[in-house]
């Protein structure tokens, strides 16, 4: 019988709990703000014999992901965590982990990238990894970070998928704030996650295999990339079905996207991560004034939920995308590019405006979101033309 306990804890504490409950065999760890308390918690669990994992104090994030690749290919369940510069340093290895089809689970505390150096939240780090072949989940709250982390192991290790999963939460905002959340009992999580049965483990000495071969010089590199694409496409259904299963146990919903007020919304904000809460708060106020506004939160960024977004936004008169990262020189931020592409196949053309906000932890004030809805209302009523990209609140 699943038993949940309600706690007041930080997102990082919950993520560390989730990792402990999923019993990885190896944890390569390197500290970086604001991920640090996750690896500290895990070190305590190991020191206290509460986890069987081999904890590897690597000398860099590059080696963290390198060791993760080795351990995963060896047949172990592997978890690690990072943030910002650390994720950037792993870039090469992220591609390799995905290309070798290794179901590594990594938590990322979303943080800005230098320069100038900055330790606060934005999504530049994760968005920089969006084309690496990882499945990417974003959490709005500590609760969701906990749930996503548990589901990540199931998704990654699913035989139809076998891809690494990045489970993320907003640095400081979610990782360090104390929040109310429910934690599931260990047995229920263990049963939900199950055992990892690797297919081509290095440590299966009876059947020696070669990992990391050279497929150039006319080799089938192209075919391997095609099969990787097929796998992440199959992951759509797996993310949904694993979400439905965990939802049945916990009573919490886990769609690829989460909608609020979209049944009859005329204008909507599309947003990722912790700001979804702010957006809903403003939307609630506007609804009370009779304004038909809605909010769409994207929980799964890779694979990107095109169909779900198009379905949610169909019929609205104007859409604002809130991007907490840049794609310098592109028409908008990464989320904007995806959302506009998702809407392209709809019969009617919906105006979409991109708002870059909150970079390096810049305050996401309620008035700023008020302004976004006000802009949308003007566009929807035809009193203003859709603007180009807006740096929301920048001087």
């Amino acid at each position, binding site marked *: 019988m699943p038993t949940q306990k309600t706690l007041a804890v930080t997102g990082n504490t919950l993520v560390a709990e989730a990792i402990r409950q999923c*019993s*990885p*065999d*190896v944890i*390569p760890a390197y500290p970086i703000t604001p991920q640090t308390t996750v690896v500290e918690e895990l070190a305590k669990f190991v020191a206290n014999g509460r986890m*069987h*994992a*081999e904890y*590897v*104090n*690597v*000398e*860099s994030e*590059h*080696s963290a992901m*390198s*060791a*993760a*690749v*080795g*351990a*995963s*290919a*060896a*047949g*172990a369940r*592997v978890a690690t965590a990072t943030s910002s510069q650390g994720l950037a340093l792993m870039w*090469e*290895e992220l591609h*390799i982990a995905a290309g070798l089809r290794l179901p590594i689970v990594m938590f990322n505390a979303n943080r800005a990238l230098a320069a100038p150096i900055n330790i606060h939240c934005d999504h530049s780090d994760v968005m920089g990894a969006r084309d690496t072949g990882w499945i990417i989940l974003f959490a709005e709250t500590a609760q969701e970070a906990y749930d996503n982390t548990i589901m990540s192991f199931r998704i990654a290790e699913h035989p139809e998928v076998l891809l690494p999963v990045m489970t993320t939460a907003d640095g400081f905002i979610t990782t360090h704030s104390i929040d109310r959340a429910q934690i599931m009992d260990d047995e229920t999580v263990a049963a939900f996650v199950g055992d990892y049965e690797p297919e081509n483990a*290095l*440590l*299966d*000495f009876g059947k*020696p*295999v*070669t*990992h*990391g*071969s*050279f*497929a150039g*010089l006319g*080799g*089938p590199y192209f075919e391997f990339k095609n099969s990787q694409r097929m796998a992440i496409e199959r992951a759509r259904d797996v993310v949904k079905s694993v979400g439905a299963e965990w939802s049945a146990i916990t009573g919490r919903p886990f769609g690829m996207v989460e909608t609020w007020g979209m049944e009859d919304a005329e204008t909507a904000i599309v947003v990722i991560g912790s700001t979804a809460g702010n957006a809903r708060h403003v939307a609630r106020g506007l609804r009370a004034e009779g304004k038909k506004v809605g909010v769409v939160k994207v929980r799964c960024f890779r694979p990107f939920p095109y169909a779900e977004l198009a379905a949610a936004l169909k019929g609205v008169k104007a859409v604002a995308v809130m991007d907490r990262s840049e794609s310098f020189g592109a028409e908008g931020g990464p989320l904007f590019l995806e959302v506009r592409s998702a809407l392209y196949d709809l019969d009617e053309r919906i105006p979409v405006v991109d708002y870059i906000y909150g970079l390096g932890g810049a305050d996401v004030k309620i008035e700023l979101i008020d302004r976004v809805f006000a802009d949308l209302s003007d566009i929807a009523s035809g009193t203003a033309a859709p603007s180009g990209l807006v740096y929301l609140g920048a001087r």
Partner: protein
Amino acid sequence: MTTIRELSHREDLLEGGHRLCAGCGASIAVRQVMLGAGGTPVVVGCATGCLEVSTTIYPYSSWKTPFIHNAFENAAATVSGVESAFKGLQRAGKIPADKKAKFIAFGGDGGTYDIGLQSLSGAMERGHDMVYVCYDNGAYMNTGIQRSSATPMGAWATTSEVGSVGQGKPQRRKDLTSIMAAHNIPYVAQASISDWKDLTSKAEKAFAVEGPAFINVFAPCPRGWRIPYDSTVEIAKSAVTSAFWPLFEVVDGEWIYTKRSVTRENRKPIEEFLKPQGRFKHLFKPGNEALLAQVQTEVDRNFDHILKRCGL
């Protein structure tokens, strides 16, 4: 000490049919090192480089052991992950607690002295039960003979060119073996493919220790050194007899010189090592006498330094 006859009963863990150049020193190094495993199951990791690419061209692999290539700079970290998985899975009860296995990483000098040094240093410091073997051929051979920090002083390479101003690599070599000894790990050795007895016995010791071991193996590259491909072993031999590449080991901090027949007094002049190699031919041109003398001084200084540490 295992005799060559005894060694011949051990399985050759590197299969033929790989695509290394004829006469390559890397595969000679691998074969001799792997004979040292003596039957214990081994997982091999390899840094990007000639050895890796030539032995694993899809769909063919020359490794009869489990094998992993990850990237260029991280063979040590990768194999440390495999070794950690072994421990973690033993603790999880998925691998029997009494099961024995060995973990070995190979890297060239580019992947070890240069881009992989941090990863190697970290893995050694963490104390993983693994053997790291550098096959040192003194340049980035896989990308076309670019200089590395292992390239000898005065050597031509495609990024330390010889011209009206440049006369090959102006800098001294990095002494990687000593750097590894400074990690205070149980076993460090310097060996050469030419001295199979010395190398296979060092490999046996490296596999036998609990914890990290490092072997730096001199492994000539006929293509990069501009030598005929039948002279790989001969040239390695003259690196040893000229004291360009002294053979020694550091066992729990104790330095031991293992090639007692080569001394300060009877070491051959460095010309014997340099002259047959096209990459040094400019050193023998008029005007480069001083540079040649400097190379000899450098070799003697290094040799003296090692002998002193070995108490000789």
